């Protein structure tokens, strides 16, 4: 990649860092959130949950057909859920912005590897990581076009 593109990548990183830095400044309260999630072949319900950054999150987890697992990326949570048993309760603080998959960690049938849900940890501006990514994509688009334009102009 040439200098022009490198400059845009740097600008993107700066913009992303600024967006991420706004999170702790603007989020003062630490709400508590309780969400019930059921696991069945081959989905979690709800499949997508959103919580504010800093929230104390309590998940009430239950399997309704066969044994499943619940593995949450980045939070070290991995529990087994068996049908007919009391719900499993896990609690954690949503400290980091972004999207974190929760996956079935117990082989539950043929489509087990594709059984997945998504936890979105939002900042005061919503899904900051997505906005940062879109900003970066915009900068890369314009940057790549400008780079070619300048190269042609200098010929």
């Amino acid at each position, binding site marked *: *990649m040439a200098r022009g*593109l490198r400059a845009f990548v740097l600008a993107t990183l700066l913009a992303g860092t600024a967006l991420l830095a706004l999170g702790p400044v603007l989020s003062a309260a630490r709400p508590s959130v309780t969400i019930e999630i059921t696991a*069945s072949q*081959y*989905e*979690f*319900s709800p*499949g*997508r949950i959103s919580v504010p950054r800093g929230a104390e999150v309590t998940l009430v987890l239950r399997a309704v057909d066969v044994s499943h697992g619940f*593995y949450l*990326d*980045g939070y070290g949570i991995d529990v087994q859920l068996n049908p007919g048993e009391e719900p499993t309760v896990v609690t954690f603080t949503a400290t*980091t912005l*972004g*999207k*974190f*998959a929760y*996956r079935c*960690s117990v*082989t539950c049938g*043929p*489509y*087990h*590897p*594709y*059984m*997945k*849900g*998504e936890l*979105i940890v939002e900042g005061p501006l919503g*899904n900051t*990581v*997505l906005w940062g*990514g*879109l900003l*970066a*994509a*915009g900068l*890369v*688009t314009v*940057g*790549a*076009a400008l*780079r*070619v*334009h300048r190269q*042609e*102009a200098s010929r």
Partner: protein
Amino acid sequence: MSTVSAPAAQAYPTRSVLTPRLRRLLRSRWVPWIFILASLAGFVLVILTGLFGTMTGNQNFAIVFVWIVWWFALIAILVPLMSRSWCAICPLPAGGEWLQRGSLVEHKTRTWGLNRKWPRRLNNLWTVNFLFLGIALFSPIITTNPRVTGFLLLGLMIVPIPLALIYSKRAFCRYVCPVGGFLGLYSNFSWLELRANEKAVCQHHLGKECIKGSVEGYACPWMEFPQTLGRNAYCGLCLECLKTCPKENIDIRLRPFGADLLKDAKDKDASEAWKSLIMLELAGVYLVVLLGPYGYLKDWATFRAGLDHFLLYTGLFVGGALLFVPFLFLLLTHLSRVLGGRPQASLRRLFIDNAVALVPLGLFAWIAFSVALLQVNWSYIFATASDPFGWGWDLLGTKAMAWQPILPQTLPYIQIALVLIGLAYTVTALHRLSLRHFETRRAAAKALVPMAAFAFVATATFLRLFVG
């Protein structure tokens, strides 16, 4: 590594990787035959474990090896760095080719079979496109059911045999293989190329062993003419031309990524443009259906919700790939030529060139998809290598390795970075093409807007799937 000056017609710098010793080694008829034998052994094991092993996909070597290891190696390593090197060692056409040649290793003059020419109307990627879509439609089942994977690979090893006995050379690889289609397309982006060094040497040499064959080797099995070979798309790196060229004028060299995206070629046609759009769309579809949180879509795609929902899924899947996305892209291409002040320019030519320029974005989206599979499921590789059939063996002592993704929280950021790299290369290629097609820099910049907007929206869609 020795450096060669770029030939006059070459628009980019290259660096040869062929030392005299390596050239001698590659001229041996045992290369790549010995690697084909190794990959054949691997695929036989895959077929056996697929057909006779456990039905639990993530405990079966066939599923884990093919859809995690092989797929990742192909799309993320071999194609970007080594072009169609997989085709050079692929075991799928081996049986047919050996029968056709009547020889395993050594060169023989007489070939077996009817030696017919491939039908002219099928001299494109449409067969590949339809076969690939047909297989891709059932991918949720294929990638999780060991029997289906086993039968699919067995079929892909059997089909080339009659084709090799009816048609000349590697008709299966060039016109039928559903894997070869996207390998060829994405190899246009690759870092590596095989080319004739000095075109003048070829022009003045009347022997033309590269297309006639010689005692050293066969005529190009891919039906290419090395003298005019300009793109990686249909060069299977079988090295026959390297063996037969008495002038040592065939070179393997490194080059900038994406060098073939801007080239004109007779075989760069609408079927290749469709291939590019199909692959781009499918990367998004798989991220939603396979790796997304929507259980109902998985039920639609696997018949679990009934035939009516599967047919709806089929309509959306095939209609999106063959009609909706290409039609949208065609409209934007038309808008591009209007904005660029050349409404009379060939819409077909612009459409094909611009669609092929989407190759980096599609390739990096597929790498992002494949990284997700590997980063989350890597531990299955060691478990199934130790117990390939799922019969309770523990050959390597790693059968009990627990499922443990590697830093899965980093995955979205890796995926963002990958797709942005693809976007940068695609917009660069689109702009360079625009400069070629339109008369002034200003007109080219205007014409770029709809095309760059398409690439941006496609990227934004991927970002939404990765982190949204």
